[in-house]
């Protein structure tokens, strides 16, 4: 508790200190109070057909996860929070007998009932074939976003979007998706006629379009993996090479991040990357607060403050 209190105070003091170093604190405070917009982003990745909690067999993850508990938590957050966005970074499929028997139908139905706003595709989402994935989308009331897979002449043609725009309150949120290279990972007969394009180029193009559309926040759902020892394209590389993406919701590498990672992007601004392990054991949450600073005499500026949430 003491540590939490300390952190809260440090956060406030730190913000004030930095703010006061360029502008009078009072004017910033007034501006913040003047026009504030909030969005809470909830996210999952690599749920891998874990519809029920892990069985109570004494293993490490026993009792964790499950869509019924996740849905109740999301409902609870929605009741307390104005603008909520719910996203998934792929590998919805594969990993429990549910997938072997039903090929993804209950997974997609559960996501629709929970009110997901968008998801991208992971390599395991090809596991029962592209035609199966496309067919299961009959049960989806949310779009699949992926901008670097060209699905022309595949069963997915016309059943996905490179990116989408979601309006929450006064905010316009751009959401794009990127998928991992299939070669060596996805069996060629499952990948089919899918063409894999460079995720960085495609993501930058999509993000640029979203920026021009006037999005307040641009989120990339990524199944590239957080980072690798070699030069394989990852969220880390994408974060450093992007111009307009503010946040990358990652997956594939099943990492439980202790905190979102921050990178300086091509515009020398901050791009965040976050990932919440796998199997629906955790639900991630990022709360963004936007405040326009209206004093015209000030230089154009953007402040990004990231801190752990200290209370519900």
């Amino acid at each position: 508790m003491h540590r939490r209190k300390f952190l809260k105070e440090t956060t406030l003091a730190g913000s004030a200190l930095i703010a006061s170093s360029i502008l009078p604190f009072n004017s910033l405070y007034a501006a913040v109070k003047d026009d504030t917009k909030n969005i809470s982003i909830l996210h999952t990745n690599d749920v891998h057909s874990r519809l029920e909690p892990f069985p109570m067999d004494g293993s490490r993850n026993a009792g964790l996860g499950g869509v019924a508990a996740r849905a109740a938590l999301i409902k609870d957050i929605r009741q307390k929070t104005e603008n909520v966005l719910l996203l998934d970074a792929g590998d919805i499929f594969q990993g429990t007998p549910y997938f072997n028997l039903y090929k993804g139908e209950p997974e997609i139905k559960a996501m629709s009932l929970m009110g997901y706003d968008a998801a991208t595709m992971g390599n395991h989402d090809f596991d029962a074939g592209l035609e199966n994935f496309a067919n299961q989308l009959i049960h989806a009331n949310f779009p699949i976003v992926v901008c670097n897979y060209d699905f022309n002449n595949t069963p997915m043609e016309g059943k996905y979007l490179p990116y989408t725009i979601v309006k929450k309150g006064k905010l316009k949120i751009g959401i794009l998706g990127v998928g991992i290279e299939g070669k060596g990972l996805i069996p060629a007969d499952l990948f089919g006629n899918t063409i894999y394009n460079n995720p960085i180029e495609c993501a930058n193009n999509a993000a640029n379009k979203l920026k021009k559309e006037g999005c307040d926040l641009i989120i990339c759902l990524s199944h590239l993996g957080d980072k690798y020892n070699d030069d394989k394209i990852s969220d880390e590389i994408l974060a450093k090479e992007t111009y307009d993406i503010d946040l990358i919701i990652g997956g594939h590498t099943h990492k439980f991040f202790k905190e979102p990672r921050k990178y300086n992007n091509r515009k020398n601004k901050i791009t965040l990357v976050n990932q919440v392990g796998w199997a629906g054991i955790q639900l991630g949450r990022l709360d963004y607060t936007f405040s326009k600073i209206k004093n015209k005499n000030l230089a154009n500026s953007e402040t990004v403050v990231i801190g752990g949430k200290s209370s519900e």
Partner: protein
Amino acid sequence: MFKQIFATYFLAILLFACSTPKQNISIQFKDYRIQQSDKKDSTLTAMLKPYSDNIHQSMNTVIGFSTKGLSKKQPESELGNFLADCMKIMAEEKFSQKVDAAFLNYGGIRSYLPKGDITTGNIYELMPFDNLVVLQQVSGKTLNQFLNKIAERGGWPVSGVKMQIKDKQAVNIFINNKPLEESATYTIANNDYIARGGDDCDMLKEIPVNNKGYLFRDAIIAFIKQLTKQGKPIEWKIENRITY
């Protein structure tokens, strides 16, 4: 309630950009751990029920019968021979081609087959990984290197192979009852984990893989169902495929 993991870091950055409007963004984050004790949403529970009822029923479905309990052992075991033969026979069926030899990494077998009725759930416990059955065309030289690795690791389940382990090396190797020829080409079946170089099998890593997305677990279930249909129990023997 939901256990919350509170993050423990903070930073503040001030940046200047000429083209963007003046804006202050603050971000806070939090992770919720989904626990057994958490409240459940009744809509989701109701949606899931017909599927979960069926899943639990399927896992309890009896697919075959074992006359005695089969467990794994090195260098050779009844369970290992059963699974390696299953790999070879089902690979030949799935890929419609002759397979010279089939293998399994010893560590990939996670459980045992009990005596009596065998359920689908038993097979999920035995083979929880989503490993795929794959084929590779290898030279006799590469196959020898692979068998040396198997010898070094104390002997793995094999089918179509007879060999001895001497000083952690494979010797007196026979493939389909014929001595191994270094210059010959062999078609071998493995799970994709091993074919991609897992368990230090680097000699296989660069060799192209024929993959039909066929889960080894599905192959085992189909194989046992075939046996049952023919009125045969699961009954496998030690044949001195690998000896010291």
